[in-house]
């Protein structure tokens, strides 16, 4: 058994690509080894900013021997055919065997392929891996024709302690690697992974990214606790920073508390996104503290003093910029920004951002009527100011804080909390896991924003197709669904869409789609199904309810829910079976007769007790179900249907539908049609599976 160690040493690999690269290296190499028939115990991969490493344990010395027999031409075939066969099989005439089979006598060749040394396979597989590595972006360098994420500098490849014989585009695989770029740049030889990991550690490189992340977390914890501070473990940032250093050295720095006047969101953004710093908090108040942690890649001779000082100066300059924007923005009012929205094109066919704001205003006011507790004036005001921060200096510099800044500026100019919060929240929810607004004014403006987007882009025929959804319309539709259903808002989607269409019409925007709803209702239906499927709801139940043509999402889901519970009971299962039986018989007979049976049953023609009982039960159930539906008591409508179970079962037990008497038969088929109609008042049971 042999162990394989590969290290592809390069210039700095972007942090965001490292994790996937380690996975890809492991997969490409082990797939190649497996394909050649090699087995192994495990193949862990590692990555640092400068190296991709793979260790494959427990490989055999060679691939298995293969012996196979190949049938050649018949013995009476022309000589040319035989020559071709021998050439292809790599055998000579004396190695052939003649054997008689049903169709004649044939030549047979026995081919023995001895196993190949593992090293040969490794060399081939590694070369193919390097040449075909799936980097998101790769480059050439110098005069080399190879492509890698950044220039490749060395290939280490050792099997069982010795370098594998491999040369790729000028690189000859060896048993050497290099230490930390600054602290231990010299090269050294290694024999196996244990030796490699230890010697790297001695040369100031932690090869395992998880260990680097742990070291960073531990370092931050001790620095913060010394100062009586706490930090929130930020897994994403931890992983990214672990991808920026080979030898993590966390250092704590501070900034002028005067900058704390700037909203926390901006401070965090500056520290985290631009500088990759970890933020700290005061454990008692939970407020941001004026200390940060940066992770250096080196131990300096002054214990990090200059590194800390430099980072503090950089941060201070950035925060001074942010504070300047904040102060500048606060000198004016949000309302002063509105004129500038006239200069920003929202979409060439859909007008300026100012046009969009005008539409959102009218839409938010209309929607307020449907949202319990929503003040229409506040909704309109929030919509008016919702986009005003886009032209603030702060949002121009930090687009990520759009909405958040609007809230601060709204509060500063004395808007109500409801208005200010709605400005912040109106972009939400941004996806299935984002928080969905619940405050009435926020819901109104958030709905108005999404509806305006959907109606606009559907109207000019920019609907999503396949994987293309450049305006994120699927996300907008999901947001509408979540806002409505999670807040129990009762409104007709068609009415809401109409309101959107009206606001575009008021601005004389030319629309290309001439249909009543621009195809939006069907789109909402599809998105609802996708969303409910993700939540574990059966799509056939949604179809069954959707077939009823409702456009009130809350009611639709109420019905789906009741239907699901009902079908979970014995009554439900049996009723569905009875319904299917009735529908199937009808389908067959209707096809045979070339007609469609209506539910116009003649009471006078009913003779058997079971059909009379069923007829009466159907009448009562249909009436009860309709009344219950009217009251949106979906459970009661299901209960009404459940009374049909026994009469339907008895009917099929005792009554022959296809009676000899044609009139009688037609009446009984009409009775089946009545079952179908009565059950379908609640949902289209024909769409339900099972």
């Amino acid at each position, binding site marked *: 058994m042999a162990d394989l160690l590969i290290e592809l040493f390069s210039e700095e690999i972007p942090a965001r690509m490292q994790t996937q690269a380690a996975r890809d290296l492991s997969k490409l190499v082990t797939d190649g080894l497996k394909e050649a028939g090699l087995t192994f115990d495990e193949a862990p991969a590692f990555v640092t900013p400068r190296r991709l490493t793979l260790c494959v344990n427990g490989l055999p010395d060679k691939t298995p021997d293969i012996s196979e027999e190949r049938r050649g031409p018949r013995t009476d075939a022309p000589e040319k055919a035989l020559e071709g066969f021998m050439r292809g099989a790599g055998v000579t005439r004396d190695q052939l065997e003649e054997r008689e089979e049903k169709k004649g006598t044939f030549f047979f060749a026995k081919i023995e392929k001895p196993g190949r040394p593992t090293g040969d396979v490794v060399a081939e597989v590694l070369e193919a891996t390097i040449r075909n590595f799936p980097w998101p972006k790769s480059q*050439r360098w110098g005069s080399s024709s190879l492509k890698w994420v950044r220039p490749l500098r060395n290939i280490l490849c050792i099997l069982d302690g010795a370098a594998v014989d491999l040369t790729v585009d000028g690189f000859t695989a060896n048993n050497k690697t290099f230490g930390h770029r600054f602290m231990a740049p010299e090269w050294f030889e290694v024999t196996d992974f244990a030796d490699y990991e230890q010697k790297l550690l001695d040369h100031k490189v932690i090869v395992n990214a998880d260990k680097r992340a742990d070291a960073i977390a531990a370092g931050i914890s001790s620095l913060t606790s010394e100062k009586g501070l706490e930090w929130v473990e930020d897994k994403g940032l931890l992983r990214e920073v672990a991808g920026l250093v080979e030898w993590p050295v966390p250092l704590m720095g501070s900034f002028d508390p005067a900058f704390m006047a700037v909203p926390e969101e901006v401070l965090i953004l500056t520290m985290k996104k631009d500088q990759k710093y970890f933020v700290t908090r005061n454990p008692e108040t939970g407020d941001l503290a004026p200390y940060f942690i940066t992770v250096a890649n080196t131990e300096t001779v002054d214990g990090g003093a200059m590194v800390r000082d430099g980072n503090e*100066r950089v941060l201070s*300059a950035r925060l001074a910029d942010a504070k300047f924007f904040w102060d500048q923005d606060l000198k004016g009012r949000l309302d002063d920004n509105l004129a500038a929205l006239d200069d920003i094109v929202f979409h060439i066919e859909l007008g300026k951002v100012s046009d969009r704001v005008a539409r959102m205003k009218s839409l938010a006011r209309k929607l307020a009527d449907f949202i319990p507790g929503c003040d229409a004036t506040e909704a309109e005001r929030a919509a008016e100011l919702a986009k005003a921060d886009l032209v603030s200096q702060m949002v121009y510099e930090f687009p990520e804080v759009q909405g958040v800044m609007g809230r601060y500026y709204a509060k500063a100019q004395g808007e109500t909390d409801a208005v200010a919060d709605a400005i912040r929240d109106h972009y939400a929810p941004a996806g299935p896991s984002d928080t969905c607004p619940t405050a009435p004014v926020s819901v109104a403006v958030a709905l108005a924003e999404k509806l305006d987007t959907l109606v606009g882009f559907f109207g000019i025929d920019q609907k999503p197709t396949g994987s293309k959804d450049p305006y994120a319309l699927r996300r907008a539709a999901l947001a509408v669904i979540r806002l409505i259903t999670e807040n129990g808002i009762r409104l007709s989607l068609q009415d809401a869409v109409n309101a959107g269409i009206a606001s575009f019409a008021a601005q004389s925007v030319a629309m290309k789609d001439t249909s009543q709803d621009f195809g939006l209702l069907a789109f909402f239906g599809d998105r609802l199904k996708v969303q409910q499927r993700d939540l574990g709801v059966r799509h056939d139940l949604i179809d069954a309810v959707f077939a009823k043509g409702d456009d009130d999402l809350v009611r639709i889901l109420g019905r789906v829910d009741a239907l699901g519970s009902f079908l979970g009971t014995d009554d439900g299962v049996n009723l569905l079976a009875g319904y299917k039986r009735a529908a199937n018989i009808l389908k067959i007979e209707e096809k045979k007769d070339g007609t469609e049976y209506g539910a116009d049953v003649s009471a006078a023609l009913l003779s058997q007790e079971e059909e009379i009982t069923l007829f009466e039960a159907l009448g009562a159930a249909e009436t009860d179900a309709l009344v219950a539906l009217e009251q949106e008591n979906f459970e009661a409508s299901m209960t009404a249907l459940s009374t049909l179970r026994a009469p339907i079962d008895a009917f099929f037990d005792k009554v022959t539908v296809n009676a000899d008497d044609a009139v009688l038969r037609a009446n009984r088929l009409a009775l089946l049609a009545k079952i179908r109609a009565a059950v379908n008042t609640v949902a289209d049971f024909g769409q339900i599976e099972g």
Partner: protein
Amino acid sequence: MASVSATKGMPFQNIILTLQDYWADQGCVILQPYDMEMGAGTFHPATTLRALGPDSWNAAYVQPCRRPTDGRYGENPMRLQHYYQFQVILKPSPENMQELYLGSLEAIGLDKNLHDFRFVEDDWESPTLGAWGLGWEVWCDGMEVSQYTYFQQVGGIECKPVSGELTYGLERLAMFVQGVDNVYDLDFNGAGASYGDVYLENERQQSAYNFEHANTEKLFRDFKEAQEECAKLLAAELPLPAYEQCIRASHTFNLLDARGVISVTERQAYIGRVRDLAKGCCETYLKKIGGEE
């Protein structure tokens, strides 16, 4: 360096002189700034055109850069409409280019035993030059001090061999080295002159010109003329003067942009026009030097 005080760091002009000496020692041709207005040192034909073709080429130079929209009338401590880049191009990019680069930082007083250097992903693309490359921004103690790029394409043409390009933002670098927060406070020569003494008034007046006084009618005319002249020169197979017209068109566009007379939609069209000129120059240049397209 004896003239530099230990606490204040190297004066602005000594940084330039030191970088020039350093790269001259590495075998670079030391050029003087190109005598035309341009937005970045990359526009210099010593980079753009010389990055094409098979011949090796190593050069370093200071290039004044003009970015009219970044003007702040001398009131912003960091932003300038006129500033300096130090540009190095090494073709083909040598194997030890990172080490050479770090050596240049050492030469201007940034000691690796005292500072934390980092290569942070930053890919470069110039839509106006039809060029792109991969590389990093280089951080020193969290501060970006250089751009480092391996050119892959210029003028839409594959670079073979690949050039390595280094761009030092000299003012920022000097501010870092000297520990100064306001660019105008930089020690320019170690003998009493500050950056403000040399350039503050220029920033004020040029900002006023860029934003208020530049004659846009004339600029539109200039753009068109440069475009036409470039096409004419390309037809005559004179890519070097043609490329100067391309530089002129690019800078004229930047001035028009600063005057706010180019709409968002027109912007793309203008960038496309400059790119077409750049592409034409690159193709003709390559043909002229006998390299293959």
